[in-house]
């Protein structure tokens, strides 16, 4: 930091470029939202009021609020409890439980919903939606909380215990307050992801704002109604972002405390009770993993007739869809991480009001479903840049906009880890700006950037609505093929596609964990929301 206090004209010039690049990225991010707002503002006010005050909207608002609140709370409790047991108690097969707790997030929600709904038609509506979402999203709480638990200073706890605090009071008065940033950060991500969930809700026949925007778009003969409904969702997302803003500010007092020596925190002996905990973990895994995956296995063995299968199964089609998914995933991940670099760099090196504002813009996008972003981009591309319309690049841009917030968080923490002193040292030894990037910054930040890329890849291959709307003619991905079949209830035909997609997301989750492993996990404990940010939308 000392080097930066001596600001030369050159440094200011560099800073100017940095802000310009970050601003440009922000504008790209916000463009579809601005278009939606503009489109909604164009419409007749009476029409607008008709759309938002019609009878269905009340029940949509109720459904949306209900599912967001209950999923968030349940994920919070489940994530906290399972993280505490897997980090702080002595259990048999200790290494297995964190793995089983994280793995469900590699099963895309519209695949687990398909598994449940094809099992029994009683599994529909609110209870089923809650089941599927809690299974998929509780890792978003588990990950940051267990990382935070690992990073806590055991000395504090030991002191508290020697001063006579019992284990329960110690947990509530000492541990829980320290976990708050991680816990609340994770829960807010659950809330945002629930707000923008689409595939699971449609399959489980649970109507929220997001599903209705799509229905409106399908049946409306124009996209005005969809734009108007999106405004309601935007407001809801902004509300959650505001909440997160407050929570973060409160939480900041816990961040980056000076610590004593690092050592493993103590694990509690549970006696015979440990078998109860093991049984709990196993039961949970049955619901979140075993059942959906074995249902998928069952459908793999079934025959689906061509008459009911919008997409049939053939080696060629399976290969084409897998290839498209992987291609879009790789290209999209590259573009997203590239666009995330200026914002991440700004956040890491020049934190302040401007950076924080830009970060909020990115987060706002995260609470908005893919369909809204896609609708905005369709309008932009038709009216402003016709050459882009229905091009693969437009789809990649949509992915970049949707998933840049995820990449940004990871890029930022990777660059934070690459200390600025080393960067300045390299400059003072005569390296040019780009040489510093290539030879110092990027190599140091590589694992973090890799994690960002694998996370974006994972999100892209499981993305549905933007892909449905924007994919160029003839491009079918695994997700769109599964969607075509499952939404026509052709469960057997969907199974091979679903299997490949599940394997693909498991591999990228594994890669993500690998890249985030070791030191990174400990580092992330210092900023609990980071890991959570990295795993939203999964």
């Amino acid at each position, binding site marked *: 930091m000392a080097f930066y206090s001596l600001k030369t004209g050159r440094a200011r*010039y*560099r800073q100017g*470029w*940095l802000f*310009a*690049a970050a601003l440009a990225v922000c504008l790209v991010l916000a463009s579809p939202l601005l278009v939606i707002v503009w489109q909604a503002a164009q419409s007749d006010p009476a029409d607008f009021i*008709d*759309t938002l005050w*019609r*009878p*269905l909207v009340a*029940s949509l608002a109720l459904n949306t609020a209900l599912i967001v609140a209950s999923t968030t709370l349940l994920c919070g409790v489940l994530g906290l409890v399972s993280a505490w047991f897997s980090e702080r108690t002595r259990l048999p097969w200790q290494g297995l439980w964190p793995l089983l707790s994280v793995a469900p997030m590699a099963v895309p929600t519209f695949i687990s919903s398909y598994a449940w709904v094809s099992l029994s*038609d009683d599994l529909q509506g609110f209870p089923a939606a809650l089941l599927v979402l809690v299974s998929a999203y509780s890792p978003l709480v588990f990950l940051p909380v267990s990382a935070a638990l690992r990073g806590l200073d055991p000395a504090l706890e030991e002191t508290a215990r020697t001063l006579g605090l019992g284990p329960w009071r110690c947990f509530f008065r000492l541990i829980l307050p320290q976990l708050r940033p991680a816990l609340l950060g994770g829960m807010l991500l659950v809330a945002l992801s629930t707000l923008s969930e689409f595939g699971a809700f*449609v399959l489980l*026949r649970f*109507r929220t704002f997001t599903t*209705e925007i799509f*229905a*409106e*778009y*399908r*049946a*409306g*003969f*124009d*996209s005005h*109604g969809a734009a108007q409904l999106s405004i309601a969702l935007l407001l809801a997302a902004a509300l959650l972002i505001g909440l997160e803003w407050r929570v973060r500010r409160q939480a900041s007092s816990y961040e980056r405390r000076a610590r004593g020596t690092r050592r493993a925190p103590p694990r509690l002996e549970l006696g015979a009770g440990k078998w109860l905990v093991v049984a709990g973990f196993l039961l949970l895994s049955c619901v979140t993993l075993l059942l959906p995956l074995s249902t998928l296995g069952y459908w793999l063995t079934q025959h*689906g*007739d*061509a*008459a*009911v299968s*919008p*997409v049939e199964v053939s080696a060629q089609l399976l290969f084409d869809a897998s290839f498209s998914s992987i291609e879009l995933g790789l290209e999209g991940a590259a*573009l997203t991480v*590239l*666009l995330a*670099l*200026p914002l991440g760099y700004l956040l890491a090196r020049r934190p302040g009001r401007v950076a924080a504002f830009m970060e909020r813009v990115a987060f706002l996008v995260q609470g908005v479903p893919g369909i809204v972003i896609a609708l905005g981009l*369709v309008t932009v591309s*038709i009216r402003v840049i016709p050459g*882009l*319309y*229905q*091009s*693969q*690049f437009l789809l*990649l841009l949509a992915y970049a906009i949707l998933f840049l917030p995820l990449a940004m968080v990871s890029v930022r923490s990777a660059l934070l880890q690459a200390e600025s002193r080393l960067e300045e040292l390299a400059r003072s030894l005569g390296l040019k*700006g*780009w040489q*510093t*990037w290539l030879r110092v910054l990027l190599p140091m930040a590589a694992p973090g950037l890799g994690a960002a890329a694998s996370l974006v890849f994972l999100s892209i291959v499981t993305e549905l609505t933007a892909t449905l709307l924007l994919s*160029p*003619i*003839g491009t079918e991905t695994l997700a769109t093929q599964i969607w*075509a079949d499952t*939404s*026509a*209830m*052709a469960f057997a035909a969907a199974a091979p596609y679903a299997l490949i997609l599940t394997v693909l997301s498991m591999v990228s989750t594994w890669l993500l964990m690998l890249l985030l492993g070791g030191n990174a996990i400990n580092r992330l404990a210092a900023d609990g929301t980071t890991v959570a940010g990295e795993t939203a939308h999964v």
Partner: protein
Amino acid sequence: MKPFIKQGLLGAATLISLGLALPANAASLILYSAQHPQTVKLLVKDFEQASGISVKVREGEGPELVAQLMAEGKASPADVYFASNSPELMALEGKQMLTHLPATTLAAIPAKYNSPSGNWVGVTARENVLVVNNKLAAGLSMPASLLDLAAPQWKGKLAIAPSDGDFLPLVSAVRALKGDAAAQKWLKGLRDNAQMFDDNEGVAAAVNRGSVAVGIINNYYWARLQVELGAKGMHSQLYHFGNGDVGALLNVSGAGVLKTAHNADAAQKFVSYLTSARAQQVLAKSNITFEYPLLPGIAPAPVLKPFSQLAPPPLDMQKLGDDSQAAPMLRKAGLL
């Protein structure tokens, strides 16, 4: 160079190369289709073999694709639009977006199933029916009219898919025959009575497995389910509204060529192919489609009720209209 300039240039280069990697084949035909993918795949494959013209298909719900075509305007890449229901074509015709079809194409199909002004041609027809679960509906007397389903005795017993593209023409038909007020009242009744599904496939399957007693669908969903499940798997049957009731609505699926078509010749060839004996035979014999071929002399699949025995309501294409009022009415009733 400053890092961000270099990065920017690198990025731009990557983006441009990605954008240019798109295939652009001018000789091929671009079809926007709201017809069922299963059916379209069959027809496209056969057409490609017969003509040597390759066809690229963009699939979606009817209103969605029509909205897309309207938004695209002159920039649209589409050559042909294959509708699931005639109102979609009427909407495009109303916006002057379809080109006139040659008399030879139009003459193949009886005039009442074509555009009144010759801008699109009928290809198949589908009948609106009630799918009825054998057990759950055992004690129920079937409604004489579609409008009866709004009565309180059907509460909880009815399944509908109001956001499916096939539901809109039904709303338009009720509106055209009974007037706005009656249609609105009917829709409110449905809202109180019905379980909502996302599409007609869901309705057919739910009634068949016994989740709900009856459901409003198009006839072919049931026939397809029977192919999939076999006779043993079927626990439901079809109830046909008769006597010209609005519930027996006959929907026409047809096709038109866009004025902005890039490949107008191939587009006309494709539309003419759809009405040819060859294509109509493919449709009739596929064991996939289960719609009524509109070319006279082609017998539909044997599982269907004979075409001559259907008793659709007295509605022509003009009167049925363009569905533009259907979605607002659904919204007003709280169904959408």
